[in-house]
């Protein structure tokens, strides 16, 4: 079994707000992330897939295909977007880094040929990242 990781970057804005909370609760729980005008990050995405090396190609996965899938399923939807307003998953869910990692997992998990998705890691800043291994 080999693990292969591909990185990509995207820039997006978001804010944290749950309509079930009172304005005071939203402010207390989410702090400055609750500003309704949003704020932005340069996110770094690391997608790790696992699989056996194909004896003919020497590949775990076709990198070009992985790159295209990441672009089509994730970057086209999230890069230079306001996540709360433009990405359907976040109409009902707070776009925390946790939920972004889960959303990206779900966008990619069934779209990879041959290799199996192992981990989605999303850096919100160089000092903060979330990993999701598909554990329900």
């Amino acid at each position: 079994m080999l693990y292969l990781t591909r990185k990509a970057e995207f820039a997006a804005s978001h804010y944290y707000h749950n309509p079930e909370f009172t304005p005071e609760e939203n402010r207390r729980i989410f702090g400055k992330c609750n500003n309704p005008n949003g704020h932005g990050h340069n996110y770094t995405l690391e997608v790790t897939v696992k699989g056996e090396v194909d004896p003919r190609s020497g590949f775990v996965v076709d990198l070009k295909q992985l790159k295209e899938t990441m672009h089509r399923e994730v970057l086209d939807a999230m890069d230079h977007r306001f996540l709360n307003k433009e990405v359907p998953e976040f109409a009902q869910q707070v776009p925390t880094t946790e939920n972004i990692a889960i959303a990206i997992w779900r966008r990619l998990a069934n779209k990879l040929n041959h290799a199996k998705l192992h981990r989605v890691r999303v850096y919100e800043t160089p000092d903060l990242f979330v990993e999701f291994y598909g554990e329900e």
Partner: protein
Amino acid sequence: MKAHLSRRYLFSASHRLHSDSMSPAENQSTYGKCNNPYGHGHNYTIQITVSGRVDPKTGMVCNLADLDVFIEREVLARYDHQNLNTLAEFAQEVPTTENLCVHIYEIVQRGFTLAHLETVGIEETMLNSFEYAGEKEFTAEEDLRGRGSKPQKQPDKRQQL
């Protein structure tokens, strides 16, 4: 829905690697320039990884502000701009980054209850990093295979945590 969350924190401290149980020559050959009696310093980066269920209401494993407050109060306030050798935990123990990792793991494991602690990693320099996941002691057989350095603490103490 379970996710892992990692956060990095920085602090600066000095230390000297020296063991009273070794002769001056052994200390010199074991620790090299780190045995300089006046000590030296590093900018340390700690990486704390916690895991837990993503709360459907907040979208969070745990609130980062709570983790920040805890690490600031319990870890950074203790170690930042200190000489590690002068701290109680290093009175009898060499302040290697391995041992520091174990201490910080124990502090977070004991005191931070809002998420499950997975690992504590420390980068001492860009080239050296250490990680501790709270494993039990290596068995003698594993030690013979040379798996890492053996922490100096008593095994029974760690296993009680």
